[in-house]
């Protein structure tokens, strides 16, 4: 086989690791550290964009490390979903890194500590996240989780002040517990199937007793549910995230919970497809949405409020996952990418607000729109996007999920649709409150304002902007806002891509073929196709009430054109959509 660009997939993990090693070697020299870290991340982003471009048309690909064939060796698998997640996550981490450099988070004065570890640890976090996205077996997934969790423990307790230690202890204990649960499940899976390779498990797990399958399934979901902050398991999150420095919180909020969601989606579609516990998942999703957003409404601190909206919007992702249909999964994939960007952006903007106004407590803020219109715009766009106001990308994602729910047309999906509309409105209420209090009202109306907000004149206030909002911090934030707008502009192609990714995941043959080779899959191909068509996908969403309840034909409607081998490509969708447009 001639060398191919896709064979460089492991570099997505190795590059940040090497970068971390070099950055650590230069711990005395902050400038060199910065240059190494930024350079490494830029190279990683370029590599991953190239990979995404390759994967866009070719579909899943597996790299067997050291040439040991799966299921004996360690394989790294990249498919459409993981390629998209890789690219989005690295762009986010790069932007946050630039912001952190601007802020000088690494050399924070008030919480002086071993600051030279910030950059290496940050790169290790990136490596761990990439490893989790690319892992082709359960144990490698566990190792990926541990890598980025350990890095996150260090970043969260950076400086070792009292508040951060207190928050850190809760976070570390909860994370260790969830890792232990995950490890127990890996042990049980190995005992039951004799393999930890995801593709191999997928073929073998069906032979197990139903009770055993259900136990493994639920244990995996609980372990990932803690990491993803799904409702009854989410209470560690708002206590720990807001205490970290703004860039750290931003990257945690954007990425870490989404890795949990990624693992849930991966195992749910690959290992345990079917509708066995979908109703339970939907109930959990509804509770996550509602409880999360009610928690957000009770908060006065912007960071804590955003942490609660983070939990609440995890509920949407679980909802899309529980739909078990291509349309729902496509919307979920799109929504994950959107939500990573939007949540990170909002936390970065909150960091700017805190810097400009001296506090992130809305009761003490006021007049920010007048003082700094730039900040107001930077907050307004992602906030509206989070609430899902058209035409932003949050609306597109939510619309897709609701369409999926309506197409399924059972009482539970209708409940979920209602719950997601309610959550969306309550999110709007929550962000509108920040807007009305922090930005819209006059600084004079605030009962106990931060002193920095009360300036003699507007000119004085504007002069302070330059000092408190340096361009090196505003520019990365603005870039992320622009990225979130790009999700809106490019919603069509991206949605098609998500749909292809979703179809790949539900058919499972592309993934299995990439890992195990065609011969191995051929023997079970018939069963897989039958299972896919018979069980999971509501292939014909046109009937069963869909026409009645969602008569509008949008580009979200799945076009099921599958060739003989069961593989699909994005081009066909594009063509189909184009034809639809001409009609």
């Amino acid at each position, binding site marked *: 086989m001639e060398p191919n660009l896709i064979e460089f997939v492991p570099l997505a993990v190795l590059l940040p690791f090497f970068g971390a090693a070099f950055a650590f070697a230069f711990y005395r020299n902050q400038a060199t550290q910065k240059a190494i870290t930024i350079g490494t991340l830029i190279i990683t982003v370029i590599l991953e964009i190239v990979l995404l471009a390759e994967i866009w048309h070719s579909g899943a690909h597996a790299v067997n490390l050291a040439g040991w064939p799966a299921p004996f060796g360690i394989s790294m698998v990249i498919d459409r979903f993981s390629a998209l997640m890789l690219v989005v996550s690295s762009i986010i981490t790069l932007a946050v890194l630039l912001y952190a450099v601007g802020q000088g988070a690494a050399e924070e004065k008030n919480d002086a500590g071993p600051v030279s570890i910030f950059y290496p640890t940050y790169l290790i976090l990136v490596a761990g996240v990439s490893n989790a996205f690319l892992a082709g077996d359960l*144990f490698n997934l566990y*190792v990926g989780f*541990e890598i980025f969790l*350990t890095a996150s*423990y*260090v970043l969260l*307790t950076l400086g*070792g*002040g*009292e508040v951060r*230690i*207190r*928050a*850190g*202890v*809760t976070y*570390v*204990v909860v994370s*260790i*517990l969830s*890792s*232990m649960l995950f*490890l*127990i499940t*890996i*042990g*049980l899976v*190995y*005992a039951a199937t004799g393999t*930890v390779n995801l593709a191999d498990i997928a073929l073998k797990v069906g032979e197990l007793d139903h009770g055993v399958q259900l136990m493994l399934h639920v244990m995996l979901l609980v372990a990932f549910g803690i990491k993803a902050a799904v409702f009854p398991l989410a209470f560690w999150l*708002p*206590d720990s995230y*807001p205490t970290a420095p703004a860039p750290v919180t931003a990257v945690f909020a954007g990425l870490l919970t989404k890795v949990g969601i990624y693992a849930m989606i991966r195992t749910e579609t690959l290992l345990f497809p079917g509708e066995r516990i979908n109703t339970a998942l939907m109930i959990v999703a509804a509770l996550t949405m509602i409880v999360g957003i009610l928690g957000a409404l*009770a*908060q*006065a*601190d912007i960071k*804590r409020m955003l942490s609660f909206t983070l939990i609440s919007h995890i509920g949407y992702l679980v909802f899309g996952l529980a739909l078990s249909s291509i349309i729902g999964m496509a919307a979920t994939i799109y929504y994950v990418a959107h939500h990573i960007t939007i949540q990170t952006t909002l936390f970065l903007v909150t960091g700017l607000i805190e810097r400009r106004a001296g506090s992130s407590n809305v009761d003490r803020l006021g007049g920010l729109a007048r003082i700094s219109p730039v900040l107001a715009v930077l907050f307004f766009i992602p906030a509206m996007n989070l609430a899902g106001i058209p035409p932003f990308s949050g609306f597109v994602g939510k619309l897709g999920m609701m369409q999926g729910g309506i197409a399924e047309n059972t009482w539970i999906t209708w409940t979920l649709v209602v719950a997601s509309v309610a959550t969306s409105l309550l999110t709007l209420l929550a962000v509108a409150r920040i807007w009305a209090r922090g930005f819209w009202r006059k600084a004079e109306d605030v009962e106990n304002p931060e002193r920095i907000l009360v300036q003699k004149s507007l000119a004085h206030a504007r002069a302070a902007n330059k000092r408190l909002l340096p361009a090196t911090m505003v520019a990365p934030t603005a870039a992320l806002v622009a990225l979130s707008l790009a999700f809106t502009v490019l919603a069509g192609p991206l949605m098609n891509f998500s749909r292809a990714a979703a179809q790949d995941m539900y058919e499972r043959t592309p993934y299995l073929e990439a890992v195990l080779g065609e011969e191995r899959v051929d023997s079970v191909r018939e069963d897989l196709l039958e299972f896919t068509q018979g069980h999971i996908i509501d292939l014909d969403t046109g009937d069963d009430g869909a026409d009645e309840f969602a008569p509008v034909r949008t580009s979200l409607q799945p076009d099921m054109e599958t060739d003989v081998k069961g593989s699909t490509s994005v081009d066909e969708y594009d063509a189909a959509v184009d034809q639809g447009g001409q009609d």
Partner: protein
Amino acid sequence: MTINLTLLLVMGVMFAVGIYLMLERSLTRVLLGIILISNGVNLLILQTAGRAGLSPLVRDGVAADEYFDPLPQALLLTAIVIAFALVAFMLALIYRSWVLARQDEVTDDEEDRRVAAAVGAYDPEEDAEVGTETSEFIDTMDPATGSIRAVDPAERNAEAGAESSEAEQRKAGES
């Protein structure tokens, strides 16, 4: 698959004791709980290999099922290393927490309490201050600063009582 009953029982006891310890408020006990649970998990993974067999070096004329399954031990080693690192980190956190706040306890989140106070939620069972002191070193000299911090448990209780009665008064005033 053959399971060693002794290992199974030891694992069960380790999990039970570990979970019990993790439910405590004292951080040191939580840490001990984590250590026990992680070792329990290690035993679990060890057992997934089944009965002990020949060392896994390929030899002629030996059937595949006579070898010992080496993979769980490889996984186990990784898990041990990770757990070791995490325990070390936890220990550092606990020590730091003790140096800073002279306490070895998981404390309530301040914002949570503030929000609870704002809406007037007070559950005597949950929120009442209990003046427990788990550290034996409370009256000893701090090696870093040289200062002595002496707190009389009765005084702590009195302080807590004053705070809660104040909160009740405020509540009464509002209504």
